[in-house]
């Protein structure tokens, strides 16, 4: 499949189109509102479902196959926040607090970008490793901790211990890890029992969720004027760099074309559930306009539309394909 054709397939998938519809709804000031309870319910569902599926797959994965990709993920979790921080301080001349806050977001991972990457691989009939959700759990936490430590070294911030407890017990880690354990312990047999709720309708539920995300992202775009050109460049350039890094490390660790693509998308993505919550507590002085607009208004739509196909093309290239 040509790269252009690939792009077309991605842009015309129900999920991406629903995201666009959400943006349109906000731009034309529609009275469409996704109830907050629905939004929260969908995010609980998606996280738990990823966990369940991943855990059941993990039960069938030998440790020998897992440790290299896990290490690669950890390396990403440590290097990407440092990289982001350096770029923001040196090139962007940003203050310590806001640079650290952004680094926490870009080092961590967005669960929805992860899902979108999986979905594209699936519709391209590219098989991916079953243990990938475990990698999401591994990637989510370290970056945030590292970024907060950087800020801490440079100034007195909010309560650090509380922020770390918040990340570890936060709903996204809890549901991912908890769901994985449930999937692992009850096994493929257990997964089969709940598949009609957690596996089959998954992609459809994602459509509803992206409708809402589109509405939120469009609201963020209104802040673009105040955040400046550098942040736009950062929000578009950083994912490409980190995505390439992720694909490359994943390939080194022996992952498949599809698996390395998904790892690349994970590295390229910026967190907008776990990170904002932790940053708001530990670095209350940081300006949310910066980190929310960049991660949700710029990087997420970029990855969803162009980024993931790009990482796939790169992964195919690294694996010797075209």
């Amino acid at each position: 499949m040509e790269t252009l054709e690939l792009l077309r397939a991605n842009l015309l998938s129900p999920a991406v189109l629903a995201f666009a519809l959400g943006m349109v709804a906000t731009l034309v000031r529609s009275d469409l509102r996704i109830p907050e309870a629905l939004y929260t319910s969908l995010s609980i569902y998606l996280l738990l479902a990823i966990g369940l599926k991943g855990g059941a797959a993990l039960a069938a994965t030998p440790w020998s196959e897992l440790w290299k990709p896990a290490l690669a993920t950890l390396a990403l979790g440590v290097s990407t926040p440092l990289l982001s921080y350096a770029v923001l301080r040196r090139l962007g001349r940003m203050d310590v607090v806001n640079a650290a806050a952004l680094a926490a977001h870009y080092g961590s991972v967005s669960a929805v970008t992860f899902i979108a990457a999986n979905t594209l691989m699936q519709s391209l009939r590219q098989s991916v490793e079953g243990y990938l959700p475990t990698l999401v759990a591994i990637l989510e936490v370290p970056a945030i901790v590292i970024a907060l430590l950087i800020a801490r070294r440079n100034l007195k911030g909010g309560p650090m211990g509380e922020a770390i407890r918040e990340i570890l017990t936060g709903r996204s880690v809890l549901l991912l890890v908890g769901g994985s354990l449930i999937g692992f312990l009850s096994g493929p047999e257990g997964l089969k029992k709940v598949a009609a709720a957690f596996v089959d309708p998954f992609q459809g539920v994602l459509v509803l969720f992206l409708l809402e995300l589109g509405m939120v992202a469009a609201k963020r775009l209104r802040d673009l004027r105040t955040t400046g050109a550098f942040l736009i460049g950062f929000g578009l350039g950083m994912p490409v760099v980190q995505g390439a890094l992720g694909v490359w490390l994943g390939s080194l660790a022996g992952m498949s074309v599809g698996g390395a693509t998904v790892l690349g998308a994970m590295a390229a993505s910026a967190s907008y559930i776990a990170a904002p919550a932790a940053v708001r507590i530990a670095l209350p002085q940081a300006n949310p306009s910066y980190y929310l607009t960049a991660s949700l208004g710029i990087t997420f739509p970029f990855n969803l539309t162009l980024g993931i196909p790009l990482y796939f093309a790169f992964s195919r290239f690294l694996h010797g394909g075209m």
Partner: protein
Amino acid sequence: MALVARKLVTIIAEGFLEERLVREIKRLGAKGYTITEARGEGSRGVRASEWEGGNIRLETIVSPEVAEKILAHLAEIYFPNYAVIAYVETVEVVRGDKYT
């Protein structure tokens, strides 16, 4: 019906502060509180909580001294960095001892 005057302190704050605020107003002497979900806009423009699920509106009926302490605490710890506002008014209650 013997009514007694008490102070009603209303705090509007980002939702994720709920647990912490409740702990602190109890420590400062509040005997109870009521919370409703809220949303709003103020001088601070966009906030994390917009994405994280809105504000809370916390009400607590207390003695004048406790009201004073709560406001002073908020002004010191929260007003500088968080999207928090608070106001006080006098209300009349039955069974005034319930609140002190």
